[in-house]
């Protein structure tokens, strides 16, 4: 979620950059942008340096806070052993399958809910409940029912992705202005044409917003599922690292998860850039 905040701030910043860039401000703006990307790198370096100093002079044992170098070494070893790749792939599989099935089902049902009051009233209690129940609390149940294998993880990821995508689908479809439907009807468009040429593209920005949230939530779902009961995946690796006081391994797994979430987030952003070119700000 904090990623959303960061993203919003970046967008606001970008917007203010665009506004201030008209005319003679252009070169200055380019410098600001260059500075901004430098600042990002600088803050990461600063973070690593602080971390290093904290482990060096903080007097904390390595099983509480390993040094960046130790984490780096542990990372290399985990890669060499094939351990990291294997568990990363498992988690990635869970995340992707959960995301794709959860998001597709949510889009289909969301469309139905947006179009039919009956369906909305019928499903409303479940939809609200599915938002209210924390997935962490349900995960053990799902593992009891469906075993510690991949299937229960798919289910957890799909469930956690389901609600935000569904809500965004409903909002997106309902937000299509009535006059566009009148336009389509005056041209005698079929239901199918109205769906494909009006509703899908009109709802796309909000739909992708749901997918963006869903992507990061899916990673959380997979890890929660693995922590509760599994013998594979990055969540399992965290569990193992903790129980063996191999804190560096925990760090390795956490950073890999962060990278995975960022990668998925970037993928959705890329999708937005391609599909929503029409609403992009003019380029500098």
């Amino acid at each position, binding site marked *: 979620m904090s990623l959303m905040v960061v993203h919003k701030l970046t967008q606001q910043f970008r917007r203010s950059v665009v506004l201030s860039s008209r005319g003679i401000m252009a070169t200055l703006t380019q410098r600001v942008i260059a500075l901004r990307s430098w600042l990002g790198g600088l803050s990461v370096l600063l973070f690593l340096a602080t971390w290093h100093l904290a482990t060096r002079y903080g007097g904390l044992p390595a099983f509480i806070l390993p040094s960046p170098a130790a984490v780096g070494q542990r990372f290399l070893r985990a890669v060499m052993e094939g351990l990291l790749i294997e568990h990363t792939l498992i988690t990635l599989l869970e995340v992707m399958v959960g995301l794709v099935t959860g998001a597709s089902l949510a889009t289909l049902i969301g469309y139905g809910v947006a179009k039919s009051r009956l369906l909305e009233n019928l499903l409303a209690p479940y939809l609200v409940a599915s938002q209210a129940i924390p997935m962490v609390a349900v995960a053990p149940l799902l593992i009891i029912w469906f075993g510690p294998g991949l299937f229960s993880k798919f289910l957890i990821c799909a469930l956690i992705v389901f609600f935000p995508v569904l809500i965004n689908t409903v909002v997106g479809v309902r937000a299509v202005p009535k*006059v566009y439907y*009148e*336009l389509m009807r*005056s*041209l*005698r468009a079929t239901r199918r044409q109205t769906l494909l040429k009006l509703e899908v*593209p*009109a709802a*796309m920005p909000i739909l992708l917003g749901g997918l963006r949230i869903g992507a990061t939530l899916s990673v959380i779902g997979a890890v929660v599922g693995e922590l509760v009961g599994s013998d594979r995946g990055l969540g399992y690796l965290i569990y193992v690292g903790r129980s063996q006081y191999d804190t560096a391994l925990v760090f390795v797994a956490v950073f890999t998860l962060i990278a995975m979430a960022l990668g998925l987030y970037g993928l959705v952003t890329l999708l937005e850039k391609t599909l929503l070119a*029409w609403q992009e700000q003019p380029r500098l």
Partner: protein
Amino acid sequence: MTSPTTPILTVHNLSAVFPDNNGGLQALDRVSFQVYPREFLAVLGPSGSGKSTLLRIIAGLLQPTEGKVSFGDHRQPRIGMVFQQATLMPWRTVIQNIMLPLELDGTDPQQARARARELIDLVGLQSFENHWPRELSGGMAQRVAIARALIHDPDLLLLDEPFASLDALTRERMWAELLRIWQARQKTVIMVTHSISEALFLADRVIVFSARPGRVKLDLNVDLPRPRTDEMRYTAHFGRLARRLKDTIE
């Protein structure tokens, strides 16, 4: 222009009542009139007089409570509609927006593109065909909407206060544009408006609606010669006609 041929459209005893809390809101009350081929008809009335309802019934978007709309050759006519807002699809470029009606009826894309280009020329947006709607001014967007309404060669062009959201200067420029396009394409037009000078300047005939429920109070032939020029708007005759419309509305 009102030649004694068969009407392209007959509106017969049309009433429309919308359900509400106390017995229904009557929008139209026994409205009857005829429209002839290539006629430019303006429907003038105060806001809330059911003008838009009438247009939506003719377009088949609404069902009347009573009465009926029949068309000259007894088939549903092809309709081109322009709304108060341009209603361009923001995810389509100018040319893609104009091509929409042809895409819906399955015209060959190559052919559709060629016809869209002709219309882009007609409405004077040559260098904008690949622009996004957000890059257009209000007047330009409305010209795209007019091009889109014309591309499938409709039998009937329905304009629902198409220039109401534009500023006064742009609006008057659009009048001249619309007349030029109408003369080039020879369409039957029904335009709803609440502007007296717009109705007089553009139309062959003006039907005046009363305040709710909408009823035909006056059916006036506009005997100003074509082509219309700006000068005509300042003649005594234009003034007399405007006076008459104004008195009828009040």
